[in-house]
């Protein structure tokens, strides 16, 4: 025991401190400094005066945002779309995992997985190209298809009401492969004897799926959903920005907190107000993660985040 606190231990700790230094310094500058930088949410930020030199304005920036119609719209859109993505994404991934689990040939499972994971490697920019190929109003595939059966084409990039559905399909398409992996791993962990016993009792594959497979992964589905709910105040900026091509007529249904912050910063050039919205997002996001993690811990602490 004595040697643990001796000179060697001190030297080891000194070396380890040095090894941690790059990450320590990086996080200090790129993560903690911006947290303190959030004070500009309470300031009238001017580049020439800097963060410290800019004038305090109290809650003006928050007032500006929360009294605008945008506050409700972007908050509602963010939460509504995230719930759509979680519901559709989970359902699709679970169904696919259940189907995949019924396949016996190993090479076939691998082949299916390789194809369905392929979209996950794409950037949202490229998915934006694909979306455009479908929804280009004059020469896109959707309108050609509609025209083919005698319908009138839709000006998709001017029709805000259809975009929650389009975005949901895109999210499911891009993420289904990797989400499916999580549930498939859960299924392969089920004790094989259950299926054998059920087969002896005369249960068919469908009954086995209903009474063994699905109940066995229900805890996993619940925990994944709870954790996903912790993130409903954030959204994937790249998806919204590239798929809707930042077209103003689509804002009523597709403008979310992250895209609003970006525009407030880069288009309006209002750093203070933009930071105020960011602070609002971070604080609510923090509360959501703490709450959902507490729920997850009660539920099944093994899978909780922390």
């Amino acid at each position, binding site marked *: 025991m004595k040697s643990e606190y001796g000179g060697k231990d001190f030297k080891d700790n000194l070396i380890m401190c040095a*090894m941690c230094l790059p990450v320590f310094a990086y996080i200090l500058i790129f993560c903690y400094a911006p947290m303190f930088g959030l004070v500009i949410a309470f300031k009238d930020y001017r580049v020439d005066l800097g963060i410290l030199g800019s004038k305090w304005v109290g809650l003006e920036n928050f007032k500006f945002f929360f009294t605008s119609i945008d506050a409700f719209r972007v908050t509602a859109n963010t939460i509504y779309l995230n719930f759509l993505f979680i519901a559709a994404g989970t359902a699709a991934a679970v169904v696919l995992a259940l*189907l995949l689990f019924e396949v016996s040939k190993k090479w076939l499972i691998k082949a299916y997985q390789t194809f369905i994971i392929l979209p996950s490697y794409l950037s949202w920019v490229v998915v934006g190209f*694909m979306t455009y*190929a*479908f929804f280009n109003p004059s020469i896109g595939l959707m309108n050609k298809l509609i025209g083919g059966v005698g319908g009138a084409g839709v000006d998709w990039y001017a029709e805000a009401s259809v975009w929650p559905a389009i975005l949901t399909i895109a999210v499911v398409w891009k993420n289904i492969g990797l989400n499916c992996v*999580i549930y498939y791993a859960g299924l392969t962990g089920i004790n094989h004897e259950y299926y054998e016993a059920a087969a002896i009792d005369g249960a068919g594959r469908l009954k086995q799926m209903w009474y063994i497979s699905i109940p066995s992964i229900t805890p996993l589905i619940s925990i994944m959903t709870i954790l996903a709910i912790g993130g409903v105040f954030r959204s994937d900026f790249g998806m919204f920005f590239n798929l809707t091509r930042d077209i103003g007529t689509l804002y009523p249904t597709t403008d979310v907190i992250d895209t609003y912050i970006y525009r407030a910063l880069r288009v309006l050039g209002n750093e203070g107000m933009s930071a105020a919205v960011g602070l609002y997002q971070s604080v609510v996001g923090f509360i959501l993660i703490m709450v959902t993690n507490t729920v997850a811990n009660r539920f099944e602490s093994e899978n909780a985040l922390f």
Partner: protein
Amino acid sequence: MVKVKRSEMFGGSVINLLLILTALACLIPFVIVISISLSSEAEIAARGYGLLPRGWNLTAYRYVFKKPEQILQAYKISAIVTVAGTALSVFAMSMAAYCLARKNFRFRKAFMFYIFFTMLFSGGLVPTYILVSSYLRLSNTIWALILPGLVNAFHVVLLRTFFQKLPPALFESTKIDGANEFVIFTRIALPLSTPALATVALLGGLGRWNDWFNALLYINTDSLVPLQYLLYRIMSNLQFIAMNYNTMPEFARDTSAIPSETMRMAMCVIAAGPMMFVFPFFQKYFVKGLTVGSVKE
């Protein structure tokens, strides 16, 4: 023992049919983009996009490769950012993760919390943007593409979990031989952790390769534009190609002669295509990154 045949459920063929349809649904958008790039501009204008090439020809690719400098430069920037960023990132994160896995490190708990807290709360876009552009003055340098996101708290946790699973006796015996912690890290811990390092490197590398957002924020210089941001510019400004090629003397000034519809998709294929054949080879590492546990000890 009863051998359960998994393929027997309603004939198995229904299952396979559904899975084949799903796989096709995942592939069709790729096919469409490739088909458009191989179509003739006139056919596209007359009949619209199609699932199969309309009037098969390679004009779009010929146009792109007549002036390949821009796309080659973008490839170069993306490659530099991906390789340098991933190398720096994995090196720094694995050193920290190793220390976090060592029970004799005094600041283990405090440092873990210091890193973990960044997963719960962040300053967000605006202060980070001001920091990088006004205080660190990294705009229009390659560092603006490399430094943001260099340390990922989740990846540090992933690496730490892996180091913790290595037998401590291995470290202790080397220590008795007089090796210090850095030597143990480089000689023992790193060589035994290649699967974890590969997972983190690939996850980070994929993110860097596909990143366009940092370029959107910080890059105006044409020579520093990475691949995905080049594509973004092409999509956001549908006239981009026409404008760009209009300056070329060997082509007619009439921009309608330029196959912009097919060329746009050809650029997309050239930019995104090659990696689609590379990433699947590393699939097991991407999958592994998903199935690791929580932050808890």
